[in-house]
C-alpha cells in the first residue's frame, strides 16, 4: 500500500527538457547564413569560425541548462516523494504504531510490522517513538497493576474487618455492657466500610473487580442500606422504598457501589443539614432509583461535565484527580448495563436517576425473617401463628386493629374468638408499669439460647478465618 510513494502530479519525466533548449538555436541559423552571404568572398573564414565557436558555446550552454533543468525536476520529484512519505508517516504510520503499542504489542514486533518505512530518518523517528511509548506503556501498566494489587489487599482486609466487627457487635450487643461498646464498634464499622469503598473505587479504576460477591439476590432495601453504610453522611439519607424486587448477586456489589458514589456526591454537594431523598420505583425497563439532593442546582456546563465523566469512565486520563466518583459510576454502569441520567430536581437540587436493567433484577428471595418455629399453644383455634408462610399471617394480622374497635372474628360455633395476646396487651395498657425493683435479667445467659436458635443450619458457624 505504502511501498511506492506516488509520483507527484505534473512532474515531467526526466530528460525531456534538453531538446527544448536546443530549439533556441534555430532562429540563429538564418542570421548566420545571411552573415556568410554578406561577407562571402573575404570574410568567409572568420565568420565561419566566429559563428562556429558561438554555435558551439550556445550548444554547450543549452546542454548545461538542460542538465540543470533535469536535475531540478529530479529534485522536485524527490522533494514531492519525501513530502508524501512524511505525510504518510505522520498520518498513518505513527498513529498505527501508537495504536498497536497501546494494544500491548512490543516495540520490536510493531517496528517489524512497520518495515515498509524505508526513509532512514523516518524509520529512526519511528523507532525512537516506539521505544519511548513502549516504555511509558510498561510504566503505566506496572503502576496500574501495583495500584490494583494494593487495592485488592485493602479490600480483602476490610472485608475481614467488617466480618469481625459484625461478630463483635453481635457478641457485645447481647451483653449487659451493651450500648457503649456497641457504639464504638459501630463507629469503627462505619469507618471501615468507608475505607472499603475507597479501596473498591481504586480497584475499579485500575480495572480490577469489585471486592465482594454476593451469593444470593440482595433485596433493594439492603442495596440502599449497603450504599448508605459506605458514605459519611448516611444519617441524612431518607429512603422511600416499596419495591419488593432484588438485585442479582453478581451485580449487587456493583449497584451498591455505584449508588454509594452517587449518594456521596449528593450528600457532599448539598448543605450539611439538607436531606438526600432516595426513591425506588419499579418501571417497565427495570428499577429506577432516583437520588435527589437539596443542594446547588448544577448548571448546564456542570451537567455536561458530569455526563461526560460518567460516559468516559473507562478513560483514566480524563479523571481530574479529585472527582473520582463519577468515573467509577461510569465504569460500573458500563459493566452492568446501568443507565445514569442527571436532571435538576423539584427539590431545588440535582436529581440522579440510576436505572437498573431487567436482566440484573430478580424477585425477592425467601422472607428475610424466619417464621417462629415454636408455637407455644398449637391447640389454639387461632390461625395467627400458623407457620405456613407470610400470606396468611399478613391477612390475619390485618384484623388486629390498634384502636381495638374492630369486630372480633367468629369461630364456627358463632362465638367471638379472642386473639392471643390482645387481652394481655389491653391489660398492659391500663396497668401501671411496675417499678423496676428486680435486677435486670442478665442478657449474657441468653447467648446460648440465641446461638441455639440461630444454629439451625451448619452454615451459621462463626467465621473461622
Amino acid at each position, binding site marked *: 500500500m505504502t511501498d511506492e510513494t506516488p509520483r507527484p502530479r505534473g512532474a515531467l519525466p526526466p530528460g525531456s527538457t534538453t531538446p527544448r533548449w536546443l530549439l533556441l538555436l534555430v532562429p540563429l541559423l538564418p542570421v548566420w547564413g545571411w552573415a556568410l552571404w554578406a561577407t562571402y568572398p573575404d570574410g568567409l573564414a572568420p565568420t565561419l569560425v566566429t559563428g562556429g565557436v558561438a554555435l558551439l558555446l550556445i550548444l554547450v550552454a543549452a546542454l548545461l541548462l538542460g542538465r540543470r533543468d533535469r536535475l531540478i525536476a529530479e529534485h522536485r520529484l524527490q522533494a514531492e516523494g519525501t513530502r508524501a512519505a512524511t505525510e504518510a508517516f505522520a498520518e498513518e504510520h505513527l498513529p498505527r504504531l501508537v495504536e498497536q503499542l497501546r494494544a500491548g504489542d512490543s516495540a520490536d514486533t510493531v517496528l517489524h510490522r512497520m518495515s515498509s518505512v524505508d526513509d532512514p530518518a523516518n524509520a529512526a523517528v519511528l523507532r525512537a517513538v516506539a521505544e519511548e511509548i513502549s516504555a511509558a506503556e510498561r510504566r503505566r501498566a506496572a503502576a496500574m497493576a501495583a495500584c490494583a494489587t494494593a487495592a485488592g489487599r485493602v479490600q480483602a482486609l476490610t472485608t475481614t474487618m467488617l466480618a469481625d466487627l459484625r461478630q463483635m457487635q453481635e457478641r457485645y450487643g447481647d451483653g449487659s455492657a451493651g450500648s457503649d461498646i456497641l457504639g464504638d464498634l459501630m463507629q469503627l464499622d*462505619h469507618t471501615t466500610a468507608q475505607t472499603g469503598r475507597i479501596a473498591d473505587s481504586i480497584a475499579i479504576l485500575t480495572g480490577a473487580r469489585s471486592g465482594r460477591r454476593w*451469593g444470593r439476590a440482595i433485596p433493594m432495601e439492603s442495596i440502599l442500606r*449497603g450504599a448508605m453504610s459506605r458514605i459519611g453522611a448516611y444519617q441524612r439519607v431518607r429512603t422511600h422504598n416499596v419495591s419488593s424486587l432484588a438485585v442479582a448477586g453478581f451485580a449487587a456489589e456493583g449497584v451498591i457501589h455505584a449508588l454509594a458514589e452517587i449518594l456521596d456526591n449528593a450528600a457532599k454537594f448539598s448543605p450539611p443539614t439538607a436531606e438526600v431523598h432516595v426513591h425506588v420505583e419499579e418501571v417497565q425497563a427495570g428499577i429506577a432509583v432516583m437520588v435527589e439532593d437539596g443542594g446547588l442546582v448544577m448548571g448546564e456546563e456542570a451537567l455536561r461535565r458530569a455526563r461526560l465523566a460518567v460516559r468516559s469512565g473507562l478513560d483514566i486520563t480524563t479523571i481530574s484527580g479529585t472527582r473520582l466518583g463519577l468515573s467509577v459510576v461510569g465504569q460500573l454502569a458500563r459493566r452492568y448495563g446501568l443507565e445514569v441520567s442527571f436532571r435538576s430536581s423539584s427539590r431545588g437540587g440535582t436529581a440522579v436517576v440510576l436505572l437498573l436493567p431487567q436482566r440484573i433484577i430478580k424477585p425477592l428471595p425467601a422472607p428475610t425473617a424466619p417464621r417462629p418455629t415454636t*408455637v407455644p399453644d398449637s391447640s389454639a383455634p387461632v390461625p395467627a401463628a400458623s407457620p405456613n408462610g407470610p400470606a396468611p399471617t399478613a391477612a390475619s394480622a390485618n384484623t388486629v386493629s390498634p384502636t381495638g374497635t374492630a369486630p372480633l372474628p367468629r369461630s364456627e360455633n358463632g362465638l367471638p374468638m379472642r386473639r392471643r*395476646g390482645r387481652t394481655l396487651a389491653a391489660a398492659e395498657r391500663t396497668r401501671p408499669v411496675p417499678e423496676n425493683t428486680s435486677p435486670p435479667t442478665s442478657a449474657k445467659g*441468653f447467648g446460648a439460647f440465641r446461638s441455639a436458635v440461630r444454629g439451625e443450619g451448619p452454615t451459621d458457624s462463626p467465621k473461622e478465618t
Partner: protein
Amino acid sequence: MSPHRRESPDRLYVITSGRSSGADDSLDAVTLIVAESAPAPGMQSEHADILRLCVSPMAVVEIAAHLRLPVTVVRILLTDLIDTGRVTARHPAPAPSPAHPLASPDVLEKVLVALHKL
C-alpha cells in the same frame, strides 16, 4: 461451610440510624412483645418482621434470635415501635422484694399450712 452465606450488605449502624443506645430501659431480655398493628408497606423491614413475629407474644431475646440481630439493636428497634404504638411490652412480674413479699417465710408457711389442710 461459607461463613458469608447469610451475610448481607446491611450494617447495624444503618439499621439503627446510627444509634447504639437510647433504648427503653424497662425493655428486658425476657420482656414479652405483642404486635398491635400489621406491617405497613414501606416500613423498615426489621420493623415489619418484628410485627409479623409478635403476632403472638414473644420475648425480646427470641425476636433477636429470629432477626439475627444483637439484643441491644432489637431493643432500639422495639423502642421505636413502642413509641409509635405499634407494639406493646409486657414486663415480667417483679421478683419478690420487701415491698412485694411474695416469697417471704410468712407466705410460705401459710401455703404449707393450706396444703396440709387439703
